[in-house]
């Protein structure tokens, strides 16, 4: 609880620092904050935009949180997101449910490649997952320029997926799925014996092994669930928002998930709030670009500042 309060404070500090950065663009910090707020929650349209951005962030944030809880550094959300979307596109002809299941399976499989390399050659996940990202990005690039390119063969993109997520007002059903995933992850981690063992593995793998826990099985499972969450994010983004795949489809959601999870202190329920915060920041930054001519890169800057503030707070806390 205390850690979450600290994280919330860190988010506020990050917002203030971000506002101060307006000075560098020749703007009033108060004006920047006002536009950010208006652009993200100032109208029903803005709120819908924030929600839509938050859904993939929530799921990739969960993905990172679950893996980190088990002590695995899954930096491969981006690749698992793409793998999920590709499988989702192929599965869409059999309907939404099959498409999303395929997306989860593909995300899990892509993440499990890193587990396999860990088990066979003791290759660290930090490296393998990030390298798998590049492979996935180029695989997607090849697909949209080759076998999966639209029938018109005009742009490097696919045809629209054969299925679409049901609408829910001005957002899509993915909002419900993401919330359910968050609650489901919380239940798995904090209300089941296997979740307890997964957390023990992350906190002290050596003691976990002595307590009879099969550590490598825990790691493999955590990685698969983590990959499934990121894959689901890709599938939902495809069926709910973009409807087709193109080269820059992943748009950094996988990496942004790291910031989301860290701000949420790796707690699956807090990930909801954290994803909303970053989702709002992203939509607000879009508004900044449109009305004030400030680069929407401000959103990425915001992510970086949050992480740096959190690291700073942790540093101060552990030094005392």
């Amino acid at each position, binding site marked *: 609880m205390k850690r979450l309060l600290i994280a919330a404070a860190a988010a506020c500090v990050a917002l203030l620092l971000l506002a101060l950065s307006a000075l560098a663009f020749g703007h009033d910090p108060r004006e920047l904050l006002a536009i950010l707020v208006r652009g993200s929650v100032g109208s029903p349209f803005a709120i819908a935009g924030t929600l839509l951005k938050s859904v993939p962030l929530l799921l990739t944030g969960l993905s990172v949180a679950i893996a980190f809880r088990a002590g695995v550094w899954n930096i491969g959300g981006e690749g698992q997101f793409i793998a999920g979307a590709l499988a989702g596109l192929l599965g869409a002809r059999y309907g939404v449910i099959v498409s999303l299941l395929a997306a989860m399976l593909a995300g899990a499989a892509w993440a499990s490649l890193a587990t396999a390399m860990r088990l066979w050659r003791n290759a660290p996940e930090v490296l393998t997952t990030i390298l798998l990202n590049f492979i996935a990005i180029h695989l997607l690039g090849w697909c949209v320029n080759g076998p999966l390119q639209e029938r018109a063969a005009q742009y490097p993109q696919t045809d629209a997926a054969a299925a679409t997520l049901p609408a829910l007002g001005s957002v899509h059903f993915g909002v419900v799925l993401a919330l359910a995933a968050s609650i489901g992850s919380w239940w798995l981690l904090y209300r089941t*014996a296997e979740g*307890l063992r997964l957390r*023990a593995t992350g906190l002290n793998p*050596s*003691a*976990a092994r*002595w307590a*009879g826990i099969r550590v490598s099985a825990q790691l493999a499972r955590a990685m698969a669930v983590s990959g499934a969450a990121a894959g689901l994010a890709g599938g939902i983004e495809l069926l709910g928002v973009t409807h087709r795949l193109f080269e820059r489809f992943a748009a950094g959601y996988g990496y942004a998930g790291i910031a989301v999870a860290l701000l949420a202190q790796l707690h699956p329920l807090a990930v909801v709030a954290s994803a909303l915060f970053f989702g709002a920041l992203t939509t607000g930054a879009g508004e900044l670009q449109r009305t004030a001519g400030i680069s929407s890169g401000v959103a990425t800057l915001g992510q970086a500042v949050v992480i740096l503030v959190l690291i700073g707070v942790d540093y101060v806390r552990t030094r005392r």
Partner: protein
Amino acid sequence: MLRLEHIGKLFGAHRAVDDVSLTLDAGTIVAVVGENGAGKTTLMRIAAGELAPDAGRVASRGGVALVHQHFVLVNELTIAENLALGIDFRFATRRALERRAEAVIAESGIALTNVQRRVEMLSVGEKSKLELIKAIATKPSTLILDEPTAVLTPHEAEELFRVMRRLAASGTAVTFISHKLPEVMAVAERVVVMRGGRLVLDTRASDTNAESLARVMVASPPSPPPAHERARGEVALDREGLVLHAGEIVAVVGVAGNGQTELAARLRDALPDAGHIPEDRTRDGIVAAMTLAENLALKASRWNPRAAAKHAETMIALYSIRARGPLQRAGDLSGGNQQKLVLARELERKPRVIVAAEPTRGLDLEATRFVHDQLRAAAANGAAILLITSDLDEAFALADALHVIYRKKLSERLGRAEAAARVGKLMAGVA
């Protein structure tokens, strides 16, 4: 020369060093031997001025250099740069540092070449040479080495002994901590034995032998023990050359570092259903960041916070764990209470086989007695217990039969009477 007078040192309630007086004379090689946790390193750190004693005083003529068991080197720097650390200089070129390092090494009489190599590229043997050179470079009148041969090949160890003898011949007081009795007998002129923080023997090396040293290190085995063979049940464990029957306690004894840790780890992997009490309880026994309730539930088939808390309260009472409650962090418990927590988790499900490694190391008397009572009770209820310990008193207090482990090899099974007669020799590897 260095004189320690009535030194005492407390860590919490644990008396690490208890009223020790010792004089290290110029020109003499002294070996300090004793079990893990006997207080050797603490005493030597006090001698070197790294720790302040709670009682007594340290008087030394000239400098004291202590070479730690673990390397204290900067991996990213070169040999020359590491040797320059702590030296007062204003400005030096790389070349000047290297020339100085070569001079220091030549003076030490230890062979170490290519001083521009970074430390991370060095072999373990070379790193320990560098540590030794660093210490000698300060021209100490007293040089203390903490288990200097632990990571050396026999050849490297011989080289080290030559350097130690030469330093002693030139008037340095040389002291080394060791577990290895053969090398103690080969190198030391005087042997000091510590046990439980006290100095229990101070003798000329020529007046003793490895066997009697081993016996003093781990306290004397009791005179002919009462013959009490429990009724044997069926075979519960048959592995690694160990055969255990239901209801009996068999001890594996030996000087630490003879393969006990590896044996326990192999049994852990081979026997997932057994109860395992690891020797390093803080690292392997508990998850420090989790609560008592969570730690107790690690082997459970279900997890429900409320039920787990209730269950934990029962276990806290049953195992008299001193804790604020089931939601306290396990890492905040004292060592004895952490061990009770591990016992509670491992014994609760009444496993047929229990492997307990150093179950009372570092515990106070009351906690030790509690652990022993629990193990006896488990055996009385039909569990086969393998007790891996370097504490002979403990082995004889609990075990029906003993094996000695020396250089990763187990002796045959010894009955209590036979063990009392032979265990010292077997532990020292002189049988």
